[in-house]
């Protein structure tokens, strides 16, 4: 039973990822006084791309077409780590947050290489900027998760979520506040949202992710887009799971699971609204202010870790 739920929640995470994107885009459109496309639009886009031809630059090597496959595979594997409906996951016990962070880095490394294989300056520029963001984002992400792991005395994601969900919200250590702050900043950078990156632009001065995937088309692009949607969803699920897991099922009862699904949908809706509001109300940062942004995340994460020792 537990195994089945684990498999289902991982598949669900991968399946609903485009929907999450669609919902955010829809809410954003509403805030900006537009009708906006249907929330199912990302699925239609993926279907369309999967039916198209794969255009490959004449300079590219085999790695160009391999990179999207690897990116998707490791991102999908990372999704198996995250508890969603109940406080456990398939790789939740053996799979810890270090593995999760490094799996995401795995995919990003290959995406950067794929971008550079195109042989144009767009790909190189995107990869270079992505390298900057990821180099500086990894440390605060790991430190923030480390502080939570220290509080819960376990490094496995299931353990962390279980320890949190069993506590009364008011009893949570205040260190969570610092860790949450750092995680939110990093999550924005990692998933390429405003103010670090603008997912809706194709202007070379402002973009990171879009510059990297400029040479990709057809099924390869579909895989990349799907993978980045999965990444967004799993980081949201991680944030929700670590900092607001209440409502998750702790056992394997049907009622609990239904309730957990409801709670999950509600929490995701709230996060989507939050993202849409943030993205509509602030401007994208200049490229060289991004290190500043991540520096703040690092300071918060360092404080979070220091406070686990100071407040024990």
């Amino acid at each position: 039973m537990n195994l089945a739920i684990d498999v289902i929640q991982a598949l669900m995470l991968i399946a609903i990822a485009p929907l999450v994107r669609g919902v955010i885009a829809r809410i954003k459109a509403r805030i900006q006084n537009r009708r906006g496309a249907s929330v199912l639009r990302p699925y239609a886009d993926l279907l369309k791309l999967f039916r198209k031809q794969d255009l490959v630059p004449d300079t590219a090597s085999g790695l160009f077409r391999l990179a999207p496959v690897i990116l998707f595979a490791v991102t999908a594997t990372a999704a198996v780590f995250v508890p969603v409906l109940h406080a456990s996951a398939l790789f939740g016990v053996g799979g810890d947050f270090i593995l999760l962070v490094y799996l995401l880095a795995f995919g990003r490394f290959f995406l950067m290489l794929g971008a550079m294989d195109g042989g144009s300056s767009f790909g190189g520029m995107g990869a270079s900027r992505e390298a900057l963001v990821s180099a500086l984002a990894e440390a605060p992400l790991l430190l923030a998760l480390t502080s939570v792991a220290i509080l819960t005395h376990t490094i496995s994601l299931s353990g962390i979520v279980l320890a949190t969900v069993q506590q009364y919200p008011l009893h949570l250590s205040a260190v969570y506040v610092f860790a949450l702050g750092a995680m939110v900043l990093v999550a924005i950078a990692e998933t390429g949202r405003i103010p670090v990156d603008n997912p809706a632009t194709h202007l070379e001065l402002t973009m990171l992710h879009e510059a990297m995937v400029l040479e990709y088309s057809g099924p390869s692009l579909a895989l990349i887009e799907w993978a980045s949607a999965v990444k967004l969803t799993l980081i949201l699920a991680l944030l929700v799971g670590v900092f607001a897991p209440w409502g998750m099922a702790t056992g394997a009862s049907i009622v609990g699971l239904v309730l957990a699904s409801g709670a999950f949908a509600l929490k995701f809706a709230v996060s989507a609204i939050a993202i849409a509001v943030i993205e509509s109300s602030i401007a994208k940062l200049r490229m060289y202010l991004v290190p500043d942004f991540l520096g703040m995340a690092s300071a918060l994460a360092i404080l979070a870790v220091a406070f686990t020792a100071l407040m024990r």
Partner: protein
Amino acid sequence: MGLIELAAAKALASSAVFLFITLLMMASAKRISTCIVLFSVQSAIMAAEILAVAYAGKSVESYAVAALVIVVKVVAIPYLLFRIVRNLKASQDVASSTTGAQSVFIMAALILLSFFAVAPYAKTLRLDEDLLAAAIALLLAGAFLMVSRKKALMQVMGLLVLENGILLAALTTTFGMPLVIEIGIFFDLLMGVFLMGLFVFRIRDTFEHLDVSKLRRLRG
């Protein structure tokens, strides 16, 4: 009833962290108005703390102090400052001499420093270490804001944060100063803000800007 007690205990226990958050946000804030809002929030946290102490100690005086804090620091001073900002029609930038990340790092270092500074005293005096550290951190943060921000209004902000630190130190060491002294301090502050406001306008009128670093031209 249990819930209120729990909330009061929680307010005391975690208020230090929330104070630190306001400090960190102040360090990262780029606009004066953000700082004013943050100051108001910070004072509200202080008020909650005083209320919690009052509830625990059943002291009427403390309730009065809490009320004063809310009236003066949460509402009146921010309101005044907002008016000054609005009437000045100057740029909102705090004109920091350190970058955002640097400020936040320095602020984090100051917070850690205050923890290390108070650790021996808190043990011997049996005081709440977090709150005492928070008080010192507020003092240091106020001083840091005054040093690193070039706008005259930010010097006022620094002073106000510093004063919050003094209040918190008094609260944690002696469970509140006598009401009369508190009232005196508040009026002092209020007058200070008025005076600083006047000065800010004078500086602006004379030099066409608010950057105190330009006052250097005054030397002979």
